[in-house]
Structures are given as C-alpha cells and as structure tokens.
C-alpha cells in the first residue's frame, strides 16, 4: 500500500475528530521502521538516561501547578499538563529516533529553535516567541471583547493577529530554510560554472597549446593557431560568446563580420584585419551582403598571395558598405577569365539582385579591393 494514501487517510481522520493525529503518533511510536527490528517506543523504555531527563522536568510541572492554582488561573495549569507530556515525549523520540528520522528532525525541526548562526539567536528566539504570544493573546482579546458595532470586524482582526503570531514564530525558520536552499544552490551553480570553464579552457586553449607544441617546426602554422585561439578567447572573455559557437548564426552585422574573420583565418591561415564602424541588426539584404563579403574575403585569401586582408564595414544611416582589401598580386578586372571572373560575377550578381552594388578595383601588382554597398531596407520607406 502506498504510504501517501495512509497519510492522506490520517489527515482526513484528523480533520474529522482529531483522533487521527493521536493514532498516527501512536503508530509512529509503536511500529518499527522498514528494515528495523525495534520501534521507537521499545527503544525509549530501555533508554534510562532519557527517562531520567523526562523525570527531571516533573518538578517544574509541579511548581507551575502550584503557582497557577495560587493565582486562580487554573486554565493555564490545565494546559500545562499536555504541554509537559508533549515535551517529555519529544525528548524520548528525539533520543531514540532512527538515524533517518534524526536527520529529518535535526534539519527540519531544530532550526525552529535556533535559527541564526549569530550569538544572539537564543535571545531573538525568546523575543520572537514573546511577541508571537502577545499577538496571539491580542487576537483572542479582540475576538472576545470587541464591541458589537464592529461585530463583522472582530473575527477578521482576531484571525489576522493569530496569523501574524504564526508568521512571527515560524517566519525565521522558513527564512532559514530558504536561505539554506539558496546557499546550496549557489554552491552548486559555482561548481557547475567552474566545471564549464575548465571544459572550455580544455577544449580551446589546452588543445591549441598541444597543437602548437606538435607543430613547433612550422612557424606559419603556429602563428595561425595562436591567432585563431586569440580571437576565440577574446570573443569569449570580452563578448561573452563561448568557444565552439562559431557555426551559430550572427544576429548583427558586426557579429557576422567577426564570424567571417574567424572562419577565413581558421581555414586559410591568413590574418584578417577587421574594423567595423557602427552596427545594426541583420536583414535579408545584409545577410546577402555578408555572404558576398565572405566570398570576397575568401577570394583574397586564396588568390592574392598576401598574408593579410583588410575587412572594413561601415553602417550608415541608409547604407551599409563593406571593403575587402589585400596587397597581393592583383589582377586586371576587365581582362581576366576563369576563377576571378566567376567569383566576381557571383559577388556582383548576388549584390545586384537585392539593389546592392559591387565594384572591384585591381591592377596587376597593386593588390585588389572589393567595394560592396547595400541599402538598408528599413530606412527607405
């Protein structure tokens, strides 16, 4: 049988008559836990020290009985009986509970009595209880003594005071539970972050260092590796972009240009010097512009023979311009056939389809520059 069903049954019994609570408590005392041979009660009757502690509080009970009788506040005396019985029971239960139950008691119930880690905790607990009791008594007084004209308000005010007293008594306990939860969660988050960082550093920096050590005799390759790693690390540290997301699509023009830079540097082992002035969100037109820019940059990396390509992008009020420049061997744009011409055509066609333009300037021996211009759609309405 499911334990939850049993508990629900007892709760219903309790709501009805209050007998349920008693039965549940008795069952808890008498029935051994799963996997244990003795119940709490059977252990408690053999716990001599515990019994002695319970006996030790009896004189206190007697004193209270005498005092209350003398002061004619018999009702206090009468409720002190169950309170003391409960206290004695609590002592025996706490001492003889199973390991599992003791953990539960220590973690969830004991904080009620000493909440803070500070030295004044006991005094604050007493103060708290005193205020709570006063509020509770106040609530009862309002309920009982209120004027008839405020008949409707009375029960409400009393109930509010009772609730306030509960909050004052239990509030710090709840807070301390929440605080423990938060600090535990923080510790877990920090550990996770550390593990993530270690993973990133391992995947990027350590791998690259290993590659560099292995290719120590190829300075060109070492520079390329170091350069790519520097880019990646910088974009992680300063722009918060984790390594390994290079393939992810960019959302702004500057990000897209940075993407082209990283990809071309990684694939072709040249330096791409990027300067971006202004920035804006990507549109369909600007994506096409980025594609054309990538084509032009790759083209320069492949054919120019230069070790560096400059990639400059400028966002204007109604126009975005990109310049791709190299100081390589150059060519005659009007006379070449083959690959240069083909790529130039594909860049040009791509730009012109969306109202953009592409101009290629080059002459043999003087490097090349591709100028791409694309109007910004949203500013032409």
């Amino acid at each position, binding site marked *: 049988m499911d334990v939850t069903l049993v508990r629900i049954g007892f709760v219903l019994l309790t709501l009805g008559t209050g007998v349920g609570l008693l039965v549940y408590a008795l069952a808890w005392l008498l029935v051994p836990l799963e996997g244990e041979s003795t119940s709490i009660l059977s252990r408690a009757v053999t716990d001599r020290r515990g019994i002695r502690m319970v006996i030790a509080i009896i004189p206190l009970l007697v004193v209270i009985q005498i005092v209350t009788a003398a002061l004619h506040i018999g009702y206090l005396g009468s409720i002190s009986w169950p309170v003391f019985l409960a206290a004695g029971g609590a002592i025996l239960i706490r001492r003889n509970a199973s390991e599992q139950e003791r953990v539960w008691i220590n973690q969830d119930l004991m904080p009620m009595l000493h909440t803070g880690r500070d030295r004044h905790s006991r005094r604050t607990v007493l103060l708290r209880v005193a205020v709570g009791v006063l509020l509770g008594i106040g609530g009862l007084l309002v309920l009982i003594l209120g004027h008839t004209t405020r008949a409707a308000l009375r029960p409400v005010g009393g109930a509010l005071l009772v609730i306030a007293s509960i909050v004052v008594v239990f509030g710090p306990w709840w807070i301390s539970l929440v605080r423990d939860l938060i600090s535990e969660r923080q510790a877990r988050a920090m550990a996770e972050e550390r593990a993530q960082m270690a993973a990133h550093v391992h995947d990027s920096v350590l791998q690259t260092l290993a590659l560099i050590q292995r290719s120590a005799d190829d300075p060109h390759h070492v520079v390329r590796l170091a350069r790519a790693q520097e880019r990646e690390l910088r974009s992680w540290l300063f722009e918060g972009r984790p390594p390994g997301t290079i393939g992810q699509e960019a959302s702004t023009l500057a990000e897209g240009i940075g993407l082209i830079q990283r990809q071309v540097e990684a694939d072709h082992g040249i330096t791409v010097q990027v300067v971006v*002035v202004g920035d804006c969100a990507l549109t369909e037109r600007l994506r096409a512009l980025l594609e054309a820019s990538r084509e032009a940059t790759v083209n320069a990396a492949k054919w120019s023979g230069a070790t560096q390509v400059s990639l400059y992008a*400028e966002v204007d009020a109604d126009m975005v311009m990109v310049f791709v*420049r190299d100081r390589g061997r150059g060519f005659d744009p009007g006379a070449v056939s083959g690959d240069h011409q083909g790529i130039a055509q594909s860049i040009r066609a791509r730009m012109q389809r969306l109202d953009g333009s592409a101009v290629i300037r080059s002459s043999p021996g003087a490097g090349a520059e591709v100028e791409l211009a694309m109007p910004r759609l949203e500013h032409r309405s």
Partner: protein
Amino acid sequence: MSGDDRLRIFLVDDHAVFRSGVRAELGDAVAVVGEADEVEAAIELINERVPDVVLLDVHLPGGGGQAVLRGVAPHHPEVRFLALSVSDAPEDVIAVIRAGARGYITKTISGEELLQAVATVGAGDAVFSPRLAGFVLDAFADGGGGSVPTAGLDPELDQLSPREREVLRLIARGYTYKEVARDLVISSKTVETHVSSVLRKLQLSTRHELTKWATDRRLV
C-alpha cells in the same frame, strides 16, 4: 644611419618576452635606451634618459599606460608615446590617446610596420592603426552608426571635417598614408596633417562618447 642619428627608443611592458621580441624586431635601426616593466620605474627612467619615443603598453600594473603618460608629460613634453596593446576595447585605446599618446598600434603588428610607426611618431606625427581609425569614426559618428547628433558641441573640436572622415575611412580600410594620399590626390604631408588634427580633436574634444568612456574608467 650612424649611432647618434638613430631614434632613441624606450620600452615599457610588463612582459619580458614581449620586450625582447620588440627589441629583436626593431633591430639596429633604432637605439633602445632602456626598458621598464612597471609604472614607477618607467616614469623615473624616462624622465632621466629622455628618449625620443616610448613604446607604451596600455595594460600595465600600477595604473596602466596613462599613469606613465601623466608622470612624464609635465616634465618632458617632447617625449612621444606610441601605445601598444593586445586589447580591442575602445575605451582603453581612447583613454590612452586622450592621456597624450600620439598613436596606437596592436601587438600583432609586423616588424616593418612597427619601425614605420615608430619613425612616424618620432617625426611628431600621429599613428592611426585601422582599428583606431574605426574607433574614432564610431565615436564621432553623426547618426546612422547608432549615436544621435548631440547639440551644443564645439564644431571645431567635436566634429570631424569631411576630409578627415575620408582619410580615416581609408585608413580603416587598410590603406597606408601613402596610399591614402594617392587615392585622395593630396600629398602625404597633408594626410599626416589631417591625422594629427584628428588626434588633437580626440584629445581635446568634450564629445559625450569620449568623456563617457573616460569617466567610466575614472581617468579624466
């Protein structure tokens, strides 16, 4: 060049490996008269030896490159500073330029370009890397680039002339001064004049974007 005619260079960088690398790249074309790896020592030695050009690391323990500039400029305004950095952050670069450096280059620069830059600064002109040109165009953008035109600015100092803008744009595109001159059909000297004028504006402008970067870092 004979020994006495060579430019006297001083290196300030906290990485010994980098200093020896720069020394090797500069070779015999210039005379390296000293090195320092932190702010205090740098100020003391530079004031003592008065080099022509100081190659200054932007990120330096004990106050950064700006601290060295502030410690030397009042005593020896003739000493010229060329800032070197691996950092791409615009505020760092703008801050060191506003503190008085005559140029900014990145540490990945080639040996040949480094010599060229040192010579340019030594001659009293400004050195703008493409990246610095981009930052300046960004900071002085008149709308479009995201910033709104601000009213109440001194147009003399807080705006770039169309010609200066053209020059910076070409530098940002990767053109050398000589190539800029050829493209705009002006002399190299005129290009240098334009760049130096931009540098002056950069240092004296009250433009919001510039002061904001500086105050964010408590450098004004």
